[in-house]
């Protein structure tokens, strides 16, 4: 090959650009998945939840969640006319094995499945000192565990108590909204295994997603709206006593 100085100088910037893209690697392993085409959330219908704990068990299996830690869990509320402000809430082992029988007596009982709300303005990502946790371009709050120091600022900052420090990895962990599944066209493990369809993954950027029709026709709420975190987990028929 006959390469003179002029041609070499012309090729140099092109080679630099090519080398840069080689170093950058391919951040998205799933073909045909474009992060800018999605904005993920979830719809939870309280009126359908039976408290069976399938979601909790499925999440633990799918994501290798250690015992005693939860990325999703189910709470059972018991509200009587005298304790509207301080309802009795139980969640034995996160509701993994179901709940004790609730007796028909004064007041009402209902289940509230909880998970990371994947807030658009998430307080947990703002406090990270090293850029280890972030809201992805498709609206999922994720953790880069190789960057995480385990300082637990984010665990304190989450108003919903959705994060924990993994006891062996010493890094923060949380619900990834099954990012490894939703980027391949599957739904999350909890939605997949919910027997009553109480949990549904929602893509708010997809105009054909059934969530849009649902949000128009139902009284849907989010948890702790006063925190202004813009949660993307929407609850249908949420009781006012839920904290």
């Amino acid at each position: 090959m006959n390469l003179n100085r002029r041609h070499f100088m012309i090729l140099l910037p092109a080679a630099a650009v090519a080398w840069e893209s080689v170093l950058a690697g391919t951040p998205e392993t799933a073909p045909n998945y474009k992060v800018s085409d999605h904005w993920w959330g979830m719809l939870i219908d309280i009126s359908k939840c039976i408290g069976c704990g399938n979601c909790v068990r499925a999440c633990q299996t799918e994501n290798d969640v250690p015992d005693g830690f939860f990325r999703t869990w189910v709470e059972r509320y018991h509200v009587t006319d005298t304790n509207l402000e301080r309802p009795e809430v139980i969640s034995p082992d996160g509701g993994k094995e179901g709940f004790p029988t609730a007796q028909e007596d004064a007041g009402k009982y209902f289940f509230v499945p909880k998970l990371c709300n994947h807030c658009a303005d998430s307080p947990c990502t703002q406090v990270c000192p090293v850029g280890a946790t972030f809201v992805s371009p498709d609206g999922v709050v994720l953790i880069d565990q190789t960057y995480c120091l385990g300082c637990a600022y984010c665990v304190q900052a989450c108003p919903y108590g959705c994060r924990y420090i993994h006891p062996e990895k010493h890094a923060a962990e949380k619900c990834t909204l099954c990012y490894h599944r939703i980027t391949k066209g599957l739904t999350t493990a909890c939605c997949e295994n919910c027997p009553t369809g109480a949990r549904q993954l929602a893509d708010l950027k997809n105009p054909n997603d059934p969530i849009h029709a649902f949000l128009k026709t139902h009284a849907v709420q989010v948890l702790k709206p006063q925190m202004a975190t813009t949660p993307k987990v929407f609850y249908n028929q949420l009781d006012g006593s839920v904290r």
Partner: protein
Amino acid sequence: MNLFKDVGHLFRFVALFVVGTLAILGLRAALTPHSFGQYGHYRGAALGDIAAHPIKFAGHQTCESCHADVAEMKGKGKHAHVNCEACHGAIYQTVPAPAAAQPGAFEKLISLVIHKMPPDPAVTLHADDPSIKPVLPDTAVLCARCHAASAAKPKSFPQVDAAEHSGGVPCETCHQPHSPAIASGDAK
């Protein structure tokens, strides 16, 4: 004009400053991952790392590709919308990994600075390895989790008090779990 007299030491100082700045910029460029800042103040390649986690629950279509007979029966019954793996467990199961070698003194020292995560455990599909069996559920536990009567469950959801309903007879004596309605019509 004596302004630029005896300024040699200043040039040395500036040169040192320039070299130091270049060294710091060079180090930063070398140590910062190349995808940092791709989407924001984080490593863009982390999205791919997280998406590479192995899938365990493959969904009912995967089961139905072999178990068409069960799928047909289930499709007609009340449990048509319940995922197979909701009762039988994940179709991919974790393969027990061989015990990892104990880290040496040097690795321990390095691990204080470089945060390396243990790799995700490998998974194998039930269809690929006959030794991996989905769970045969214990109906006394499994049926009750959903169908045990409780004031907390929605009123429209079918619930029974097991002792009163069957007197301890196992559920599958009367109900076929894949299509639980009893054909004779004497059950609710």
